[in-house]
Structure formats: C-alpha cells, structure tokens
C-alpha cells in the first residue's frame, strides 16, 4: 500500500477528487455528519466533566477523524475492536445518541449495564466491541475473529484500533504474527505521533504485514486506506497495518473542519446544511442529555448478572445478601 504519508484533505479539492475514492456519496455525508456530531457530544461531555456533573470522561479528540474515518470504511458484518477514544466510530457504526449518553451517565438504557467507564460503551454483532481497560488486549482477539471469518468464509474483516502505547504489549506481537501466519482478513490501525522508534510501521513490516502510513487527522485518507486494506484482505492478500500519525497540532476540537471543503466541493454539503445540521445536532445532544438525566439509575440487582451464562448457587446466595437478606 504505501509508506509515504497519505494526505487527501487540505490541498486542492480537485486533486483529491482525482484519487480513486472507495466511498460513495452516502458514506461521505455520513462521515461528515458523524464528525460534527462527535464534536458536539464530546464538547458537551467534556464541559460537564469540567463542571463536575460527570466524574470521568475521556475526550474523543484528537482521535475522532481517524475513528470515524476508519469505521465508515467498514461494512455490515465487519468487526471493530475500538480503543478508548472512539466515539467517532461508535456514531459512524450506527450507535444511537441516547444509548451512548445513557452509558456515559450510567443510567437505564446503558447497553453495557454500568460495567464500563463513561464513554466506553459497545454495540452488538461486532459493530463496536466495548473497549478493554487494558491496553492492546484486543489486538490478538481481532486476529482471532479474523481467523473465524476465514473459517466461515465470511466476506468480512476484523479491525482493531489502538494507540502507540499498545506496541510493546505481547498482544501486539502475537496478534499481528498470528494474522500473518493465517493471512487473515485483519486490519490494525495504530495511532502514533510519528516520532516513535522503532516506528509502528517498521515493527509491523518486520512481522510481514502490508503497511500504510496516513495522516490521522485526515478522515478521508484514513477511510480510503481502510477501504483499500479491506479489499486487499478480502482478496486473500493478508492483513494490513495502518499507522495513523496524529500531529500535536491535530489535537484541535473540530475534526470536521478539514473535511468540509471536500464535501462542499462534491456538492454534498453547503452553508445552509452546515447551519441546520449544527443547530440540530446541538439540540439533539441537549435533548438526549436531558432524557438520560431523567432516567433511573441502574438497579443494583444487575450487578450480579451476566457473570456466567446462568447464575451459580454462590451468586444466587449473594444476590440475597445484596438485597439485604441473609446469605443463606
């Protein structure tokens, strides 16, 4: 694929257009809207964390462009193991605003039932596996899912997104090496600063993966690269490792800004839409926050559920204790 840094946004939109886009207009518009919505939700949650209403919240920035960009290039049936800043991917993969905020507030409607830190929710069917609290753990799991897809001959890929901190974990080595050994349809996206030595790309290339380097704040370059990797993996050509470089200045709070000129140039967006969508997003987010604020907290009885498929006797006893009764 390429060891030259791929940048599609920021130059002449005509030139960008000439690159063979693998995303259709619907995807491009969804990507733009996901980025705007991500910015609005993230800003609201960050503000509420600073004001003290939310005890904990990890900002989705500066990962949002690479997050939504990667997710939009996936198809139904593809699996995503996200990192802990992947709000953009959550929305781009069809996550609902109220579900997301119910998880952040830890109230009824939280799909992961209060088990994850705020912002670390999940979606079923591989759309968004709730991120692990341990760095890099999902890399070998993604290799396992990809192997399963091979065995089932499913036309799908498994993708893991992680940060540079995961590169020294054992799961990085085994996940990448296992997927190479099976030529499994896996895509690994690592966010870096571009200054690590050895670089992420050097490590992955050394393990035999096809590699690509992209500007991680260029959502289109990320989407295009993931879509290319996806085609390659499905053609049986093996896993792909993508290094998405996040420059320090890319920590800006508007991941959509760079993309707007492109979608406008393609006639998918204009000033009026921008104004309408911004206003609607802000009111949707405020409404959803009001909704989840009004919801009851999660019942403490759920604390002992989903540990095993069926509750064994110890948990049945302990659930009596939890309700204030005697243990036995």
């Amino acid at each position: 694929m390429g060891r030259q840094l791929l940048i599609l946004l920021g130059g002449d939109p005509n030139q960008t257009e000439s690159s063979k886009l693998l995303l259709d207009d619907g995807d491009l518009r969804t990507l733009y809207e996901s980025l705007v919505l991500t910015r609005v939700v993230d800003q609201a949650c960050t503000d509420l964390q600073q004001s003290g209403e939310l005890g904990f919240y990890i900002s989705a920035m500066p990962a949002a462009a690479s997050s939504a960009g990667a997710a939009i290039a996936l198809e139904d049936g593809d699996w995503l193991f996200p990192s802990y800043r992947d709000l953009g991917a959550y929305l781009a993969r069809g996550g609902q605003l109220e579900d997301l905020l119910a998880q952040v507030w830890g109230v009824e409607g939280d799909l992961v039932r209060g088990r994850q830190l705020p912002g670390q929710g999940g979606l079923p069917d591989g759309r968004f596996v709730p991120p692990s609290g341990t760095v890099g753990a999902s890399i070998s799991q993604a290799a396992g899912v990809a192997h399963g897809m091979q065995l089932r001959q499913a036309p799908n890929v498994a993708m893991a997104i992680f940060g540079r901190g995961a590169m020294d974990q054992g799961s990085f080595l085994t996940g990448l090496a296992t997927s190479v050994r099976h030529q499994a349809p896996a895509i690994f996206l690592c966010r870096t600063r571009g200054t690590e030595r050895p670089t992420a790309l050097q490590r992955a290339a050394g393990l035999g993966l096809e590699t690509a380097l992209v500007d991680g704040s260029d959502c289109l370059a990320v989407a295009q690269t993931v879509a290319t990797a996806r085609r390659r993996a499905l053609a049986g050509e093996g896993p792909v490792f993508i290094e998405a470089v996040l420059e320090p200045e890319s920590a800006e709070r508007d991941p959509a800004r760079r993309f707007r000129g492109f979608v406008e140039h393609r006639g998918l967006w204009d000033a009026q839409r921008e104004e309408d969508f911004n206003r609607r997003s802000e009111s949707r987010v405020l409404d959803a926050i009001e909704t989840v604020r009004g919801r009851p907290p999660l019942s403490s009885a759920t604390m002992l559920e989903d540990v095993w498929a069926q509750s064994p006797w110890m948990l049945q006893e302990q659930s009596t204790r939890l309700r204030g009764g005697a243990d036995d």
Partner: protein
Amino acid sequence: MTELTMAEALNRTLREEMAADDRVLLLGEEIADLGGIFGVTAGLAEEFGTDRVVDLAISEGGAIGTAAGLAMYGMRPVVEIQFADFIWAGAEQLFNEVARMRYRSGGMYSCPMVVRVPYGVGGGLTQSQSPEAHFAHVPGLIVAAPADATDAAGLMRAAIRSDDPVIFLEPKRSYRQPAPVEDDAVVSLGIARLRREGADLTLVTYGSTVPQAMAAAELSAEKGIQVDVLDLRTLAPFDIGALLGSIAKTGRAVVVSEAPRCGGFASEIGATLAEKAIMHLEAPVERVTGYDAPVAPAHENDYLPDAAAIATAIERVANF
C-alpha cells in the same frame, strides 16, 4: 463402554465433538504435528485439517487472546496449554478479557471456550503447579478438575458445550491410567461424584489427588473408619448440595489437595463448612495439602500428600 486411558478418552471426546459441531476447533503449541505434549490431540490434524487443529507460536497470551476472538465470533475453541505453570503468560487475556467479556459487554459478547491445563506435581519447578485456586477466584470462569478417563470424557463434552469459559484441569499423572468410558456420556459441570460411601467421615478431594484419597479410604476402612470420598469434579461452581449432604451424615471432614495450603481451594471448602455446617461438625476440619513451597523436581514424592498422610488425618479427625 470401553477401557481407555485419560489421554485416549480426551482424544476420542475431542474427535467426536469436532465431528458433531464444526464450530469446535483446537489451538495450541505443537498440537497438530506432535499431537500435543501428552498426545491428547494425536491424529486430529490428519482428520480435521490444520484449519481446525491449529498450531500456534509459543505464546499463551496469544493463544488465549486468539481463542477469545474466535469464541466471540461464535466458534468453540479448545486451547491446550502445555503445563499449568505456563498459563500465567496468558493470565491477562484469561482473567481480564475472557472471564469478563460477558459482564463487561452487558451480555452482548461472551467467550465460550475450553482451556485445557495439564497440572500437578511431575516435571520440574515450572511444570508442577496446581493453580486451581487462582482460577476459582475469578468470576466468570468455570473450573473443572476430572480425576480419571471416565469423568474427563464426560466433563470435556459438557465443557465444550458450555456457554461459559471453562478451565479444564487435567491431572497429568492420570493421562496413562485406564478407566471405563461410556459412549456419549456427559458429566454436568458443577456436580460432584461420591466415589465411596461411608458413615464416619467425609473425605473431600478432586482431580489429581483422588487416587491417594481412595487408597487412604481403603487404609482407614482396615482400621474400621468408613469414609465418604467426595470427588468434587468441578471447583467453580462446586457442588454445595453434595458437600453439605455428606457432612450432615458424617459430621467430620478432611480435605485433600496437592496445591500449597495457604489460600488453596481446600481452604474454601473448610471455610464453607465452618459457615454452613458448624451445627453438624463434631471435629475440626483438617486439610491435607502440598506445602507452601515450590515443587522441586528432586523432592516430588515428599511434596505430594500420600495415602498414609491422608489416612493419619482421617484417623485424627475421626477420633477427635
């Protein structure tokens, strides 16, 4: 009914489950070409191909992490760890990921898989651990510990069909011991087996120390002490009904395990009896265990609780 060694019984059960369910696949180090370090997977790669009998690199974390992904995707992986002592390299995946996947995802994802773990004294300083208490301490894992070919076959079938991750502890000194194996027998997880009946004392054990416990029961019988030998077979969750039922009858208990004493699973049984059966107890519960020391290859026989030591404890508790 066929007489098979435990290794043969496991091999046959894996073969039958793989034939019946194409979601079942095996992962491990040298399990295809070599047939696994104890020969449990011998011949299966020839029969099912290396897509389903997968040799992995030497990385327990990689094996368990890969299996976790396969399980989440709907497959039923069975992972072979060569020796229990090696599993700690995979503990992060096992404890933080596999065991909690159902919980952390609110039930959206789960990791139904079997991790086969040869365990117990025999082999060396890093080939002799009995780590069952560590696993039984982790919510979300099921811990099975069969003692012989009969139960290994039946429990393996249940473990593969379980919707939860199962740590399957295989007592490696029993791999070559024969026992009758019934076709298609399933031993439900969580159900103990009363291997011998007696009214005077309950001898509780599981897995690798069942043979010594049976021999000790025989020695005690010669001295007129008749014991129930309760083989737990599953440690998490263990069969509380069978345990309390036997104690209600005998009022006395000795618990046998070859793991180190401090914080061991024998202690969990002792504590449970103190909490739930104190009104039945006529004597202190005694543990016969390994030592709070590693297992030195030069001293394996000294380390293991033997029938004489168990019989001495039985006599002490019976005559208290």
